[in-house]
């Protein structure tokens, strides 16, 4: 980033301006992450998470993207991976690289960008040709005949049967919680931003154990006086803020 970019000052209060992400050169956190990986010239299969996470956090601060939940969620994810990498490993146990999922997503995203390039090129060629624009008004043709078949109707019956017979039953797999890890992440995110929402720390893909770890971590930190947790009304987004009063003390 050049020096020309003024340091971003978050607004004193009120919702963050929603156009920030639109104006940004990046179309999402994965885009930014890929750009960093390219800039740093690191191997995508062996990402130095500590370095990249630090760069990512620094960059979203510079760009003022830390008001966008998606970037913040990615920052939290990177810090979570970093924390998991620091955990002591048992040599005999099978170890899953915590970066694997991120690498898969980055590759998938990279491939999608290649398709975008193809689409952009083809779209640009097509944009340079006009179709017939002026069409004299014609009488409205009568309603087209209906195409219906019994097999289609029966296929619908099958679909309905399937749905009514298959209520959503999930297998529940117990998973150990990682409250200290969650606390590390929350601290790092709070470092970045004074107030945030619970949804900034979690995303659709968060697993139950991650949600529970985060919630327990929040409660623990609230007890320690590191932050305040507030829910304005039932089912509203949970708001988290740094407890500046106790910090000063």
């Amino acid at each position: 980033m050049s020096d020309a970019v003024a340091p971003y000052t978050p607004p004193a209060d009120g919702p963050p301006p929603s156009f920030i992400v639109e104006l940004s050169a990046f179309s999402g956190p994965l885009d930014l992450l890929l750009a960093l990986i390219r800039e740093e010239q690191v191997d995508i299969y062996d990402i130095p998470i500590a370095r990249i996470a630090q760069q990512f956090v620094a960059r979203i601060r510079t760009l003022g993207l830390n008001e966008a939940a998606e970037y913040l969620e990615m920052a939290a994810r990177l810090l979570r991976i970093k924390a998991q990498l620091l955990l002591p490993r048992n040599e005999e146990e099978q170890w899953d690289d915590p970066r694997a999922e991120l690498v898969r997503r980055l590759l998938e995203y990279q491939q999608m960008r290649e398709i975008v390039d193809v689409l952009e090129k083809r779209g640009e060629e097509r944009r340079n040709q006009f179709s017939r624009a002026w069409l004299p008004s014609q009488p409205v043709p009568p309603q087209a005949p209906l195409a219906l078949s019994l097999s289609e109707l029966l296929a619908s019956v099958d679909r309905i049967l399937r749905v009514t017979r298959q209520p959503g039953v999930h297998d529940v797999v117990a998973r150990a919680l990682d409250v200290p890890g969650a606390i590390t992440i929350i601290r790092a995110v709070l470092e970045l931003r004074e107030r945030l929402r619970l949804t900034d720390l979690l995303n659709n893909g968060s697993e139950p154990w991650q949600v529970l770890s985060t919630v327990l971590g929040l409660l623990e930190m609230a007890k320690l006086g590191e932050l305040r947790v507030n829910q304005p009304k039932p089912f509203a987004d949970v708001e988290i803020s740094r407890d500046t009063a106790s910090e000063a003390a």
Partner: protein
Amino acid sequence: MTPLAKLLEAALFASARPVPTEELRGLDPESSPAAIQAALEELREHYDVDGHGVELIEIGGGWQILTRAEYTEAIERAQLASRPHRLSAAALESLAIIAYRQPIGRLEVEEIRGVNVGSVLKSLHERGLIDVVGRAEGLGRPLLYGTTPLFLEHFGLRHLEELPRADELAVALRVQSPAVVAEQAPMDEPVAAVAASSGNG
């Protein structure tokens, strides 16, 4: 054709309205009005002499390319013939539920499909495939729907009893709402079996 005639053809084709001669001049500032006029004549003649399905005509001070009248009928016929209307998956599902469960109210259909079906029922009604056959008792006396003779005609059925698999669907639809079943089901038992057994009870 001369380059100017080709440019005029492209411009008239792309324009959303008939184009007056003065505006055509904006296409090529170096061409004189006489040159534009000559190119228009060239294009018109090309369409007429060479034998095209379209023609260039001047109307109300503007120029436009139109399809020749002799082809209009064939074009309309082809459009109609090639676009039979298909029912959406949503409409078919609602129609199937009404066929097997009639008379049935809107809310019941929505409960089974899990989505709002107001507009779907409206379009099925407009198509003449379902009709209001009565009103339920109770609050608001909601309308009840059933299929029409046109429905039978469409599927080549003499009467509703000819619809296959009525028993199967009737059983499935009598099952309690999925949420309740889920709570009762033992975790390791296949779901389909649960639904079937509770249906028979």
